[in-house]
C-alpha cells in the first residue's frame, strides 16, 4: 500500500532542503542572541522609551502568528528598506526576488522577540548580588555581565533556548509560502512529482524528527558543559 521505494528515493531530494532549513535556523539564532540580550537588558533596566518600544515589539511578535508575520514582513520589508536606502542616498530598488534573504530577516526578527523574554527571565534569575559583588571587586559592568552574570544566566536559559531553536526549525516549514525551498517545499515537490503525498510527507516528518533530536542532543552536551556555572 505504501510505496516505500518511492519514500526511499525521495529522501535525497527532501534532504536537499535541510541545509536551507539549518541555515535559516542557525543564522536567526546567532544573530538574534545579541539583539535579544540587548532587548532584555533594556527592559530589565527600564531604560526610558527604549524599554517600552521593545515591550511593544516583543508583545507583537509573541501575539501574532508566524505565518502572518511572514506575509506581513515579506510585503512590507522591500518597501521599507527601499525607503530607508533612499533616505540615506543609496537608491537601490529591492524587490521580493531573494526570498531566502527576507526569510532570514523575518526569522531573526521573530526569534529576537521570543529569545528576549527567555533572556530577560534568565538574567533576572541570577541574584542581583552577583553583579554588585562583581562591581565592588573592581570589574567593569561589561566584565560583570560577561564573566559573572551571563554564564549563570545561560545555564538557566539553555533548556528554553533548546525549545526556541526547535521552534525556529519547525517555523521554517512555513517559509515555503514566500518561495524558500526548504524541507517542506522539497517535500511538496517530491509529493507532486509522483502524486505520492503520504510517503513524501512521512519522509518530511521523519526528517524533522531527526533534526530535532540532533538539536536536543547538542543542547544536552552544552548543558553538561555549562553545569559548572549553575547557580546553587
Amino acid at each position, binding site marked *: *500500500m505504501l510505496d516505500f521505494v518511492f519514500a526511499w528515493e525521495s529522501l535525497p531530494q527532501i534532504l536537499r532542503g535541510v541545509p536551507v532549513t539549518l541555515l535559516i535556523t542557525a543564522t536567526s539564532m546567532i544573530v538574534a542572541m545579541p539583539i535579544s540580550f540587548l532587548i532584555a537588558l533594556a527592559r530589565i533596566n527600564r531604560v526610558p522609551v527604549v524599554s517600552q518600544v521593545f515591550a511593544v515589539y516583543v*508583545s*507583537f511578535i*509573541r*501575539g*501574532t*502568528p*508566524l*505565518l*502572518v*508575520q511572514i*506575509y*506581513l514582513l515579506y*510585503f*512590507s520589508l522591500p*518597501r521599507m528598506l*527601499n*525607503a530607508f536606502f533612499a533616505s540615506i542616498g543609496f537608491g537601490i530598488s529591492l524587490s521580493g526576488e531573494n526570498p531566502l534573504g527576507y526569510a532570514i530577516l523575518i526569522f531573526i526578527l521573530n526569534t529576537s522577540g521570543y529569545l528576549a523574554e527567555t533572556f530577560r527571565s534568565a538574567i533576572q534569575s541570577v541574584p542581583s548580588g552577583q553583579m554588585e559583588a562583581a562591581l565592588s571587586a573592581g570589574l567593569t559592568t561589561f566584565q560583570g555581565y560577561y564573566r559573572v552574570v551571563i554564564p549563570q544566566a545561560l545555564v538557566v536559559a539553555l533548556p528554553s533556548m533548546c525549545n526556541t531553536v*526547535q521552534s525556529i*526549525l*519547525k*517555523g521554517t*516549514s*512555513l517559509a515555503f*509560502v514566500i518561495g524558500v525551498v526548504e524541507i*517542506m517545499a522539497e*517535500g511538496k515537490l517530491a509529493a507532486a512529482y509522483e502524486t505520492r*503525498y*503520504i510517503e513524501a*510527507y*512521512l519522509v*518530511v*516528518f521523519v526528517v*524533522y*524528527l531527526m533534526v*530535532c*533530536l540532533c538539536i536536543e542532543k547538542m543542547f544536552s552536551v552544552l548543558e553538561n558543559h555549562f553545569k559548572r556555572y549553575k547557580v546553587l
Partner: protein
Amino acid sequence: MEQGFDLSYMVEVIPKLMKAFPLTIKLAFISLAFGFLLGLVLVIFRLRKGKVLRGLAGAYIRVIRSTPTIVLLFLLFYGLPVLLSLVGLDISGWDKVSFGIICYTMFSGAYFSETMRAAYESVPKGQYEAGVSVGLSEFQALTRIVIPQAFAVALPNFGNTIIQILKDTSVIFTLGVVDLLGQAKLISTNGYGIKKIEVFIAVSLIYWVISLVIEKLSDFLEKHYTKNRAAT
C-alpha cells in the same frame, strides 16, 4: 509609485476580515477542549508506574513536539482518509476544518499534558500524604488538596497554550481553508495588490488583540484564583 499608507482602508477592511473570525475561534476552542481531555489522559499515563503507558505517552509527546504544525496537518489530510479506509470508514466527505481540529487537538493535548505534569509535580508530596493521613480517600486527597494547588501553577501555562494554538490555527490556511489569514489573503489579492500591507497589518492587529485579551483574562483568573489561597 510609492503610495502613502492608507489608514482608512485598514479600518474599512477589519469588518471584512472579521467574517472569518468565528471559524478561527471555533477551530481553536474545539481543538483546545478535546486537547484538554487528551492532555488529561496523557498525563495520567505519564504519571503511572507501568513503563508501557508511560513510555507511550512520553514518546507521543516527544514526537509531537518535534513536528511542525503544517507537516502534521498535511499528513492527516492525505493520510487519515487512506488509514481509515483500511478499516472500512469512508471520510471522503469530511470538511478540511475537521483535519485541523484533529491536528490541533493532538498538539494541544501534548502541551496540556506537559503543563499538567509540571504543575502536579510542583505540589509537595506531603500535601497528598497529609490528606490521606487525615482520613481522606486517595481520590478526595487528589481533588480537594493537590489538584487545586496544581491548577494555580498551571493557569498561566494554560493561557499560553491557548494563545499558542490560536496563533497556530493560521496554518490551516495552507490547506486552503479561509480562516482569518485566508480571508486576509483573499482580500489582498482581490484588491489591487497595492493595499496588501494594510490588510496584513490589520489581520496581525486582530490576532494581537485576541492574544492580549486572553493574556489579560488569564492574569485576572490567576489573581482571582490565588486570592484566598495561602502561598505554598
